């Protein structure tokens, strides 16, 4: 105890106000004001222990340090007289790893947690591991898909837009990436990542860590892109096409790969197919852009694209469909399997001509307000009825749905989860004339989607409550012959949040329910 000094931090130098520092001389002690460590003892729970007491005698001139070694007595009845357990009162010093005990130490401490009594815990883990054996071998969400040599790669841009081949594809994580790869005609044969073989070479392991069952990646389809961008689908998709130099061009360069993985609900991969887009580069090209995609389908199910689970996710398309005719009670809602084709609006084109738009539609994405439009040239020769019909087709599209899903994952069978679209019709000009003999043509469609936040305060889910489609019409004035008029046709989509503010609920304060017995005040009552 006399040799212990907590405040002695500087080696071979005197620490200020540290009375137990052996490096300090009497001259140093005379400069101190107090002792930062007045007493050094062992464990105070012992019945009798040595204590070193340091103090400064400020009366003397110069001040000097006083050091006393005394026996401190713990007066409590429960003070420790002796112990026969050597680690009782001090921290255990850890074992120094040597080559003999390294494996045992690694097994003991490699986990995320370990306890002071490793033996008792080992029993539990042994009992659990046989039943866990099946569980750990199945793929879970986000786990990288393993192949025979490493993992299934989905090259993606890292930091810059150059492709990095070290990005693994995660199980059930649908991804689409685009990146740039540097390739030229001379080197196209040497770069592995532009050849088909690189992507279908290694087989995927059906279960995690089990090399017994492997799934080969089959080539589903091959599309060849010519230099001017035209795509041709090839009939024979089982021939492996490797890059080769032909007429100063390098052909069969992989420009895009799309993987489709089929899995079971036990977390096993049973099928893997890849579709390729091959292209060609010429002498001047220094880099190409590659795009990669991976999608997962559960076996024996039709993929139902979800727009959120359960609430809508901003940016995903609004799901909409039709009620089949003829049923008194609707059983199911039918919708387009293309999730981007369910609820669409007119898409603005660069030439702004409505009739030349060729029916280009853009999907309505949840949360994104949109305005689009085009200009329609009306000549005198156009008749009212066909013009009205054309404009309606333009605004609403060929198949305008009747119901919109209120949640992103509403199933077709749950008819009550689908909200009907209410249609309104207003007129631009107030016409008090009841003879509406003049022609009313629709020129604007406004879709208003009212949604609310549903569920818990911490994780609110978006739910569509109401959808209204308002068609605004205007009068078509007869034009003198030979004249032309251009009218703007617009369509807009607005998302309005009508959620009421959240009310936190507090638990009621507990009340003290005390009732005296009814004859408590017996003699007096």
């Amino acid at each position, binding site marked *: 105890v006399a040799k212990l000094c907590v405040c002695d931090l500087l080696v071979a130098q005197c620490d200020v106000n540290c009375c137990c520092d052996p490096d300090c001389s009497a001259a140093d002690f005379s400069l101190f004001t107090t002792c930062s460590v007045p007493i050094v003892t062992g464990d105070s729970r012992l019945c009798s222990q040595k204590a070193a007491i340091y103090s400064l005698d400020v009366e003397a001139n110069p001040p000097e340090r006083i050091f006393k070694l005394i026996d401190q007595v713990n007066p*409590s009845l*429960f*003070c420790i*007289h*002796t*112990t026969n*357990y050597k680690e*009782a009162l001090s921290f255990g010093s850890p074992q120094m790893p040597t080559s003999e005990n390294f494996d045992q130490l690694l097994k003991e401490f490699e986990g995320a947690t370990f306890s002071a*009594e490793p033996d*008792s815990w080992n029993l539990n883990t042994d009992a659990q591991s046989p039943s866990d054996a099946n569980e750990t071998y199945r793929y879970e969400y986000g786990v990288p898909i393993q192949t025979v040599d490493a993992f299934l790669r989905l090259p993606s841009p890292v930091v810059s837009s150059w492709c990095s081949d070290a990005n693994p594809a995660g199980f059930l994580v649908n991804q689409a990436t685009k990146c740039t790869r540097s390739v030229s005609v001379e080197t196209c044969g040497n770069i592995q990542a532009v050849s088909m073989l690189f992507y279908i070479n290694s087989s995927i392991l059906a279960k995690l860590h089990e090399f017994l069952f492997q799934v080969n990646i089959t080539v589903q389809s091959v599309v060849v892109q010519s230099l001017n961008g035209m795509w041709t689908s090839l009939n024979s998709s089982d021939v492996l096409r490797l890059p080769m130099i032909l007429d100063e061009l390098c052909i069969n360069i992989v420009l895009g790969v799309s993987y489709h993985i089929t899995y079971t609900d036990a977390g096993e991969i049973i099928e893997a197919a890849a579709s390729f887009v091959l292209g060609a580069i010429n002498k001047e090209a220094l880099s190409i852009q590659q795009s990669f995609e991976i999608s997962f389908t559960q076996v024996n199910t039709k993929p139902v694209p979800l727009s959120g689970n359960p609430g809508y996710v901003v940016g995903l398309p609004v799901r909409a469909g039709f009620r089949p005719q003829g049923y008194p009670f609707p059983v199911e809602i039918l919708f387009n399997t293309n999730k981007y084709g369910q609820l669409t609006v007119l898409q603005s084109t660069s030439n702004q001509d409505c009739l030349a738009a060729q029916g280009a539609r853009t999907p309505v994405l949840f949360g994104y307000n949109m305005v689009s439009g085009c200009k329609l040239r009306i000549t005198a020769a156009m008749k009212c009825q066909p013009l009205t019909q054309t404009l309606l087709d333009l605004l609403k599209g060929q198949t305008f749905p009747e119901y919109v899903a209120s949640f992103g994952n509403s199933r077709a069978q749950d008819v009550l989860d689908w909200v009907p679209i209410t249609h309104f019709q207003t007129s631009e000009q107030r016409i008090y004339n009841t003879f509406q003999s003049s022609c009313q043509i629709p020129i604007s469609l406004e879709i208003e989607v009212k949604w609310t936040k549903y569920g818990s305060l911490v994780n609110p889910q978006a739910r569509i409550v109401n959808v209204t489609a308002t068609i605004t019409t205007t009068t078509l004035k007869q034009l003198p012959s030979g004249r032309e008029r251009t009218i703007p046709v617009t369509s807009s989509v607005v998302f309005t949040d009508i959620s009421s503010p959240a009310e936190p609920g507090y638990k009621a304060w507990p009340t003290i329910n005390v009732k005296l017995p009814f004859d408590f005040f017996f003699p007096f009552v």
Partner: protein
Amino acid sequence: NSSYQLSSVPLQILFYINGIYYIFYFLATLAMIVYKSEVFSYPDDFLAPDLALLFIMAILEVLRLYLGSKGNLTEEEAPLGLSLVMTVGSVILSVYFLVWQTYVLKADVILNALLLFTYGLESVLKVGAIAAFVS
């Protein structure tokens, strides 16, 4: 009157006091072991032997006191001799709790010292009683 009655009255009184004191000793030691296991680091490998020995000592003590009391009252030397032999075992156990226990607190020292003193006094009286019965 000692020619009619050979049983030793002081020994009987001592047995009685020993019984009551031992109950107190057993409960106090058990409570202190529980206290030690909460306050100090008391791993299972050290706790189990201490508890086991305490329970063995309790059983031994009951048998010892019964045999001793019976031997003294019926003036037979066989049970009393057996009780004396068992006292040796009890002494060893008491010394264990005094010196070799995992944590020996000051209260443990006091309790066990008193118990050893009682055993010592009893042994002397038992030897005297056996001598009286034999002769």
